[in-house]
């Protein structure tokens, strides 16, 4: 008997494919779910990992969490919130379009517990980031509970998907759906009234910081998924550096998930504003001059 081998050199298309968009769903006004073909990554990815996506020539390399994968179909699920040029370009792709480059899976897989109770807290597009974690916890027999939030009803995503793994409590800022209020107030009730072994959270940085501050007095370990600006995603540039427990670490190779009680969220928020001027510029159609500069702050 010869072991079955993956045909590396015989079937190049196995890894040379352009990455075809095979399905597209609009989840909310500015959040889109794309299922794209990337067979190898779909086969080996683990919860917590991400890919670097480059749409085509001239496009930026941007990190996106692998929200789900179907290894039989060879597809990855990416859930993308259109916040700037690159994410807008990606969310405007249609079925049949393709993405030139997808590299991954990158980052460390999530540190998962194997028994007990886990609370997954997702805000906005972060809900898609906690999805694969809840999925894997569930398959390991961990009791999963999710609290997810959005500005209003239309911004709540992945409720049904998460419901497959356990109870889901939805909150909206305006009370248009589920409970009115922030995910942290619901989480506070849960932490006060039941035994939670670990919290996993992803969402806007202020939300993750609020969750970490909330769980600290309860002494419950809290894993946060950080989203600094990245370039290569392989530890080569250091642009993604974050401060954790007073140590400078590279989120792409040392993370992207860290102990929330140790993270310097202020630094992360500051660094995320580095290209604010540039980001506005790249969306401004009147500003396509070849040598337009990104002005800095000094006079």
């Amino acid at each position, binding site marked *: 008997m010869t072991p079955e*081998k993956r045909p*590396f050199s015989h079937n190049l298309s196995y*890894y040379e494919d352009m990455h075809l968009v095979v399905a597209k769903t609009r989840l909310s006004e500015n959040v889109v779910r794309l299922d794209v073909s990337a067979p190898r990554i779909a086969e080996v990815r683990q919860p917590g990992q991400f890919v670097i996506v480059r749409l085509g020539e001239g496009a930026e390399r941007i990190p996106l969490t692998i929200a789900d994968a179907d290894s039989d179909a060879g597809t990855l699920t990416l859930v993308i919130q259109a916040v700037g040029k690159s994410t807008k370009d990606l969310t405007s792709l249609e079925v049949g379009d393709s993405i030139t480059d997808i590299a991954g899976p990158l980052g460390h897989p999530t540190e998962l517990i194997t028994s007990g109770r886990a609370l997954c807290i997702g805000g906005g597009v972060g809900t898609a980031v906690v999805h694969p974690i809840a999925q894997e916890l569930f398959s390991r027999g961990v009791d999963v509970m999710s609290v997810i939030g959005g500005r209003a009803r239309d911004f709540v995503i992945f409720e049904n998907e998460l419901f497959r793994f356990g109870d889901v409590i939805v909150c909206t800022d305006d009370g248009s759906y589920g409970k009115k209020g922030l995910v942290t107030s619901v989480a506070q009730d849960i932490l006060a009234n039941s035994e939670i072994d670990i919290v996993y959270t992803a969402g806007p940085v202020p939300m993750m910081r609020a969750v970490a501050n909330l769980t600290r007095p309860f002494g419950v370990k809290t894993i946060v998924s950080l989203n600094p600006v990245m*370039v290569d995603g*392989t530890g080569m540039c250091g*642009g993604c550096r974050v401060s954790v427990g007073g140590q400078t670490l590279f989120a792409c190779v040392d993370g992207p998930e860290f102990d929330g009680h140790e993270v310097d969220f202020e630094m992360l928020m500051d*660094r995320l504003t580095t290209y604010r001027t540039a980001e506005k510029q790249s969306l401004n159609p009147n500003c396509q001059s070849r040598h337009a*500069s990104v002005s800095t702050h000094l006079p």
Partner: protein
Amino acid sequence: MIAKSPDTPSKPTPKQRMLIERQHMPEQDAQARAANFGEVNLGLTEQLALLEADRCLQCKVPKCVNGCPVKVNIPQFIKHLSEGDLPGAAKCLLRDNVLPSVTGRVCPQESQCESECLRAHKGLSVAIGYLERFVGDWAREHSGDQTPNEVTPSGKTVAIVGSGPGGLAAAGGLAASGHDVTVFEALHKAGGVLIYGIPEFRLPKKIVEAEVRRLEKAGVKIVCNTIIGRTYTLQELQGQFDAVFLANGAGLPIFMNIPGENLKGVYSANEYLTRVNLMAAHEFPNSDTPVLRGKHVAIVGGGNVAMDAARTAKRLGAESSTIVYRRSKEELPAREEEAHHAREEGLQFEFLAAPVQVLGNEEKWVTGLKCVRMQAGEPDESGRARPVAIPGSEFVIPCDTVVTAIGSRANPLLTSTCPDLQLNKWGNIIVDENGMTSLPGVFAGGDIVRGAATVILAMGDGKRAAKAMDDYLRNTETESGSIRNNIMASLCDVNL
């Protein structure tokens, strides 16, 4: 000037040769080029190259060859060149150096071959680097005329990790020996530091692209966006290929470890250069990746990387671009030509200065770099004077962008996933004299073995490893090779 005709090559006497002065490299005007990304050196014309070639004394015992890390037969290729035999020169040069267009531009010739040149003792050495570049470029431009040698497929497969000069040189050698070669590259474009690190104005990307295309034409498969240690493990490659060559470089930037280093406006040279070279941030917003265009940029370090970052800053529109180096001017490790060009382009230098803090404002933007004056102290292990701080000598360089170019280390991304791979205390892979690692059939070379070194050394490692791997592949009946042969045999049975 000496008349040239290919039919009756005139042979100058040694005395005549001694009279010819070293040719100057034609270059873009300093002021003009500091505002564009076009190549600075324009290359010798054929006429200048032939003249320069005539300066070579054709020494019986050529010292220059000893100065070359890969022992290029320098007098021989120059001889062909001086006879106007460009195909002969190209063939001779390419035998020893697979990337002459690249090394002709980036090798520190002044401390290698040219420093050994007999003529350097009395005046100026033969411009070996210029000639290498000239012949390399000629060969590239005329590669269409050359038919790749017919090779008999060996039936063996090789995986190469990393497409920098080490990986590319190994790929070329192995393909020429008939092996089926696949190069895996983490980034979306092949070339390693030649693509993402060394700027266009020093090494045009079209040269690297042409070298990559040449390899593809020779049958090498290049697979980008594939991170070994993540997309595939080394163990999987070992199972799938008959041999593996690791040339994943030393791409982990070292930071200064001083307060303020995480302020906005502090870059590693790797990030700064990658944004511009790989992602075309200088064309933003016509390309999507931005880079901060600092008005006053301070660059920490004194090597080629620091010069590249500082000259890039100038080209991005900086009013001042200042190199901060903790040793003296004489100890600057950059290629002489880079430092010279940098000065011409109006860069400033702060020698004997070491950063102690990056200063920032309330919004966490960089506002300055606080440094301390250094003086030469006792010699260190390297024999160089150890720079020591002069107490109370702190001063501030006002700036809005700081780029650190103080070196890089082995990136543990791949090696940390292979516990059986033996590393030294710096995380570099340990190899034997054949370039083989502690894992049988797995070879390594370039920066991942040497620490941050040079293009020519990485290339030399790749070439040597290709030879050693060829021996290994021919002498070992590798397991997967035999399995594949079994599969092939059974397929043939079915078909018959």
